[in-house]
């Protein structure tokens, strides 16, 4: 951090708590540093911000904005954990569940899945009011070390950004528009691409759900002893709070 940036620090508030920020920081970056967790799915540490899942929506100056892309502004009042925003986030997560085929009991990502963990955090336990779309989506097990179960893809695009920006490969990309927008591989099937199991895009932390599967390691950690069995999603950020 340069002295120049330190000079340009200012404060704003999230739910009444004063947060320090630097010019150019997004609301979420400043909140993370201060130990205030804002729920997110398409944003991931080390990848450029996209602002597409809208789970991080906050109210800033009375307007709904995605906290991962909106720059923090001096003196601004930001609402994060209000009943209204929590309900909206829960509905968003529920719709993501219903848009694909998310059967937690049969998914090897269960317990490590950020979508599922977000449902836990947002208390997604009431009887649903949304229909299940139950789409028919392909399974691509052509690659010797990697499988893709696109039934579980939530189109967050984290693998796209990781492959392009970190691996310098471009294995994944978006195709289609609107509700038909999907993550596709750069070829007829994954085996035709230059994807490797050592790519950052294939690593466990990049795919938030169980779509990108590394073969032969699925149940190395048993159900019940996984990441979000040990604590709510976001607890490591909240523990930074002083």
């Amino acid at each position, binding site marked *: 951090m340069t002295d120049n940036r330190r000079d340009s620090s200012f404060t704003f508030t999230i739910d009444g708590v004063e947060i320090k920020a630097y010019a150019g920081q997004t609301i979420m970056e400043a909140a993370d540093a201060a130990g205030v967790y804002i729920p997110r799915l398409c944003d991931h540490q080390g990848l450029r911000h996209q602002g597409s899942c809208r789970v991080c929506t906050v109210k800033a100056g009375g307007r709904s904005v995605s906290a991962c892309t909106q720059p923090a502004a001096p003196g601004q009042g930001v609402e994060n954990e209000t009943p209204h925003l929590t309900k909206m986030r829960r509905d968003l997560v529920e719709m993501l569940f219903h848009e694909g*085929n998310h*059967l*937690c*009991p*049969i*998914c090897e990502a*269960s*317990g490590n899945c950020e979508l*599922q963990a977000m*449902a*836990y*955090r947002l*208390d997604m*336990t*009431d*009887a*649903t009011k949304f229909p*299940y779309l*139950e*789409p*028919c989506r392909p399974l691509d097990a052509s690659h010797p070390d990697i499988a893709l179960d696109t*039934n579980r893809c939530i189109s967050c695009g984290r693998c796209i950004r990781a492959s392009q920006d970190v691996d310098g490969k471009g294995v994944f990309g978006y195709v289609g528009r609107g509700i038909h927008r999907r993550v596709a591989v750069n070829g007829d099937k994954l085996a035709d691409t230059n994807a490797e199991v050592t790519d950052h895009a294939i690593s466990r932390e990049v795919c938030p759900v169980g779509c990108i599967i590394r073969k032969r390691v699925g149940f190395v950690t048993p*159900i*019940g002893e996984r990441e979000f*069995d040990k*604590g*709510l999603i976001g607890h490591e950020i909240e523990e930074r709070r002083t």
Partner: protein
Amino acid sequence: MTEPAPPELPRARIATASLAGCFGCHMAILDIDERLIELMNLVDVDRSPLTDKKRFTQRCDIGIIEGGCCNEENVHVLHDFRRNCDVLIALGQCAIMGGLPAMRNAIMHSDAPLRECLVEAYISGPYIRNTTHNIPNDPALPLLLDEVYPCSQVVEIDYQIPGCAPSGDIIFDTLGALLSGRFRGFERDMIRFD
């Protein structure tokens, strides 16, 4: 001066049923372990596989449903529970969202999905040994539905206890809180979908 003893609560009546489930959620009820004795001091069990009663003997306070609806008998039982229970609880992921049986929903996108499913299950599947080459069609068998439905898409569900299977703790805590009128939602760290 000692505190006056709390007024004794009238015993509640509960009923349970397993629809399109694996009976794992009923096993999970047994995971309450020795606290079952505590629970049994508060409730009488009416219609349930635990008592082997096949019909309601009287109106119940709480009905507990395991499993979703995959055939017409499931729908019939679920309607019967809704009619006879004040509070209806969907227990476990199958009752909440269809669960494993609902895997057939996503693969059924042809013109005759049910037939395709049955043909693969009984005739054309690579690991089938069915010497009669027939799809079971005894009139006593309940007809399959076109899809597997979560309970909340068939009747109104009051509470859903998540898990596959739910832990004995979440079942015990939820029932205890409901019986004493203190239920205010689940502890976040007890919510599991697996």
